[in-house]
């Protein structure tokens, strides 16, 4: 079966600047990065015109990643909730266990086309790091992964996995020792090594062209979903639900539905210990626009514009910013953003594990928890698709610790 990717509409709307989503996005970087970003933009534009690039990408996605991933009707979950039929888009079944690999495969193919020999990346939960180390190994490229020192501790299994794949993992001790600091450090590495190094950003954030590039590469999720749901239901879904940290799995599944006005799009942010506690990672729900990591988008910041520490039980959502296109989807009202707390996500993790035999990632568990609320509200004869963005094996130590169990 052919893999459906391409066809993203990249031409900016009238009056809109390239790389902007309304007032969001842009290229807020120091001068040294302008040249490399322009080079990347041009290389990507050229690749998009080249059928050979698309063929290579399709082949990698099919034979290496295992696409298309199934759209699975969660029957027992649907029965238990007594409302809309809930389908799960099984990105957890992609190679390396999450959607992240769709993006890393594409960027690695691009890197090779550009003659780059060294790959760097940032990672939070470690999923993007693993997906990057995997494609670097596959393509014989040197690989360095930056990871916040706190995340290195709480995601030890993924750190070891990256090392097994031949990557060097560098723990970042600066700042809050989490994903944002890993991204700062990766940017610093890139500035110093731009000639031979390709920076694979893991989400739809960062300076232009990354938000567009990563969205286009993740769009395969939504394109497949749209076809699959039409096949089994003969109609489009009423709602599409995905968790949002940086927002790549959400944008990947949302994007092909944006012009379908009857399809509601729900992004679910990490509510941590609750918005009122201040300990959360929900910039769209509780932050305001600002500039971080090369783009304007919603941020968690102090009154003076200092980035503030975030909290989520899920390392992959523990980020103070969000992709700029989500900021635009929020302001334009096309997508709605909700919040699920740590406790709600963990409860949903357990329920899905026992009801469907699927251990979801803690990030994904946020989307599951919201879908559980939505299904009865929508009622029967309605259809919800949840992006099951990753598998939860990496999180079992965290879940066990919540129950006072040490593995």
């Amino acid at each position, binding site marked *: 079966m052919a893999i459906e990717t391409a066809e993203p509409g990249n031409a900016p709307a009238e009056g809109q600047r390239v790389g902007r989503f309304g007032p969001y996005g842009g290229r807020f970087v120091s001068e*040294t990065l*302008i040249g490399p970003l322009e080079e990347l933009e041009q290389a990507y534009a050229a690749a998009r015109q080249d059928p050979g690039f698309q063929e290579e990408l399709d082949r990698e996605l099919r034979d290496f990643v295992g696409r298309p991933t199934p759209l699975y009707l969660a029957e027992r979950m649907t029965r238990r909730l007594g409302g809309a039929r809930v389908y799960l888009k099984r990105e957890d079944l992609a190679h390396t266990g999450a959607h992240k690999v769709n993006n890393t495969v594409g960027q690695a193919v691009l890197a090779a086309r550009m003659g780059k020999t060294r790959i760097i990346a940032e990672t939070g939960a470690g999923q993007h790091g693993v997906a990057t180390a995997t494609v670097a190994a596959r393509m014989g490229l040197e690989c360095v992964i930056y990871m916040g020192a706190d995340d290195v501790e709480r995601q030890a299994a993924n750190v070891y996995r990256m090392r097994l794949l031949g990557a060097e993992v560098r723990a970042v001790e600066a700042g809050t020792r989490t994903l944002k600091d890993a991204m700062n450090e990766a940017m610093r590495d890139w500035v110093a090594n731009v000639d031979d190094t390709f920076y694979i950003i893991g989400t739809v954030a960062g300076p232009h062209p990354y938000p567009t590039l990563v969205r286009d590469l993740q769009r395969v999720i939504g394109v497949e979903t749209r076809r699959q749901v039409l096949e089994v239901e003969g109609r489009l879904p009423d709602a599409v639900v995905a968790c949002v940290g940086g927002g790549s799995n959400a944008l990947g599944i949302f994007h092909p539905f944006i012009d379908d006005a009857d399809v509601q799009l729900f992004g679910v942010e990490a509510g941590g210990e609750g918005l009122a506690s201040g300990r959360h990672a929900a910039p769209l729900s509780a932050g305001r626009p600002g500039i971080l990591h090369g783009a304007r988008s919603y941020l968690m910041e102090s009154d003076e514009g*200092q980035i503030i520490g975030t909290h989520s039980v899920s390392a992959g959502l523990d980020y103070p910013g969000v992709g700029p296109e989500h900021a635009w989807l929020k302001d334009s009202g096309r997508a709605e953003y909700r919040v699920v707390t740590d406790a709600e996500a963990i409860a949903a993790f357990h329920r899905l594990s026992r009801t469907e035999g699927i251990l979801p990632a803690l990030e994904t568990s946020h989307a599951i928890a919201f879908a559980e609320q939505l299904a009865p509200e929508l009622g029967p004869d309605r259809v919800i698709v949840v992006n099951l963005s990753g598998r939860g094996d990496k999180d079992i130590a965290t879940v066990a610790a919540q129950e006072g169990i040490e593995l």
Partner: protein
Amino acid sequence: MSRIAECFRGCRASGRTALIPYITGGDPTPERTVELMHALVAGGADLIEVGVPFSDPMADGPVIQAACSRALAAGTTPQSLFEVVRRFRQDDDRTPVVFMGYANILEAAGYQAFVEQAAAAGVDGLLTVDLPPEEADELSPVAAERGIDLIYLVAPNTSAQRLERVCTAGGGFIYAVALKGVTGAANLDAQQVAAQVTAIRCKAELPVAVGFGVRDAQSAAALAPVADGVIVGSALVRMIGECGDTPDLPARLEDAARALRRAMDEATAGGGT
């Protein structure tokens, strides 16, 4: 004429290369920053760059990252740095002051509000690392209105086409980034920098100052003959970090500035090397 233009004109007339020290504002405390600025002038500084601390200084190396953390821990805000400059201006109305920082601080304050307060306090220029000319639509007009120079970076990999654009967009001086990397990194190749400065001079009317990677008096001396100004940051900031909030900090900083001054003057006196 702006203080910055006056400063470079004076330097040129007396045949010296401007010494431009950078210190992170509020490190070790906002109160002491005023003293340190005076100490730098006493040691021979011609223009002072004051870093506005940011939680995520992506273009800076570990030395200035640590200084930002210390300054933020000391409670430094843009407001407290405006106050620092106001107090500095009570005794020094001549030395230009440039705020160097990151876009989100201006974005949070509001571009207009930030510029007005900076101008009122006596700040002469803004160097916002992650706000290249293409993204400065909001800042440019308000800065022009209040006579604040926007100083832009030129990197070794800035294309010839862009160079022209950056040089015409900027004011005050052109900040030539001498190496690919973060502040405080690696060694400089003076010859390569000379070629870079020559290329910039072809496009720019403005003076050209060189920074990033000027580690000590020796490297400052090597660059002095080829540029209008030499920016020294991490070397001084490291000293401030090591010295801490101690009584003799201003004297030590003054000595460090004087050593740079002397080395640069010796290098330019002989007609350059």
